């Protein structure tokens, strides 16, 4: 399968802020299941409630992470762009997306089939640990942002 992955996808993934410097084997496993995708403005990368089966590394553009509340329609809680990653619901049951992600500008991303990553982590737990060391700071920053949103809600 890796032979089907274009060289520019390999290069783009290796240069992406999240993947840069990760162990070669992990990078190879991610690359083997990677596809470059382009999204037009208004196109969804993922939808709340659907199976979380991909991990996205953004190359360009802008993506809004949206929540849907019946009384307030759609609310964007954060926008992300080049160098950011989207999607960790595949790491925790029930493996369903908990947000919508929609392109608000023409966007390019590398989508990685997470079954390849799961298989690699099962075989090489040390690589899984390396991956989590990259992912946890992303989660921490998003949680901190939510804390600020909550704390500022009454004072801004």
């Amino acid at each position, binding site marked *: 399968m890796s032979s089907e992955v274009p060289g520019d996808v390999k290069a783009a993934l290796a240069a992406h802020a999240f993947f840069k410097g990760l162990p070669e084997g992990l990078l190879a496993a991610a690359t083997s299941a990677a596809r470059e995708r382009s999204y037009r403005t208004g196109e969804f990368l993922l939808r709340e409630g659907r199976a979380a089966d991909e991990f996205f590394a953004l190359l360009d553009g802008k993506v*809004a992470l949206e929540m849907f509340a019946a009384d307030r329609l759609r*609310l964007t*809680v*954060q*926008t992300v762009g080049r160098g950011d990653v989207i999607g960790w619901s595949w790491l925790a049951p029930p493996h369903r997306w908990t947000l919508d992600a929609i392109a608000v500008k023409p966007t390019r991303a590398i989508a990685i089939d997470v079954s390849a990553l799961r298989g690699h982590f099962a075989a090489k737990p040390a690589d899984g640990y390396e991956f989590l060391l990259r992912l946890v700071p992303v989660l921490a920053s998003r949680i901190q942002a939510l804390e600020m949103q909550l*704390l*500022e809600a009454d004072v*801004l």
Partner: protein
Amino acid sequence: MSSRAVTAASVVDAGLSPYAPSPYLVRSRTEETSDIATLVLEPAAGVTMRPFVPGQFNMLHAFGIGEAAISISSAAGPSGELTHTVQSLGPTSKALFSARPGTCIGVRGPYGHGWPIEAAVGKDVLLAAGGLGLPPLRPLLYRLLAEREKYGRIEVVYGARTPKHLVFYEELQSWRARNDLRFQVTVDVAGREWYGDVGVVTTRIPDTRFEPANTVAFVCGPEVMMRFTAQALLARGIGPDSMYLSMERNMKCAIGLCGHCQFGPDFVCRDGPVFSYRRIGPYLTMREV
């Protein structure tokens, strides 16, 4: 707050009391949001406007109601106007917010230490503002742009709760159009009508461009925003001596006598409101302060 009921003679105490306000008239009023207004003030007859520096504040007096400490939001300078941006929160600020052109308002000040602009000469400059933290940084930004050649890269990050909470909306467009300044605007949450960035101020810090060892940061906003922004800037390599925060506390006398605004060992009105992070950083995470 009737402009007819209050005259200069009735409120000026011949300069004998440090608490006596000088009468100013509201020249114009711009409603920034549903509860924030910017008032341009001019001294009443016989009153001379006192010079101020970016980052200082005045005590604004709503006659018959009370006084509130409000940062100066206009450019400083001998011919500069005196502008305050007020959010309606309590009775005094509500009266100030509602003041129409011609209304007489009492002003005493300016007070406090402003932004240490000289520390930024020859360096990159980062301004981070949250909510009503932009008005106290606005005079600083004007000063930086007026002497643009003295500074390196200028980055501004401004965050508000939602798009409808953004202040100085027209100026934001002109600042963002400049090519000698990078001005990022973000909001905490937004609907589909907003095409800009969404996320708290700290989410934009990784995207700012500066040389950490040669950068001075000026931060103003709610304390929680300043706390997390300072952490993000420290992580980017800006030192605690190169980061300045403007504190807001319950200021009453404004001259370091009453103690209402005590923050750790300092009185915000007298020793601040601008402090280095080195000075006040440890107190930002103390519940007891």
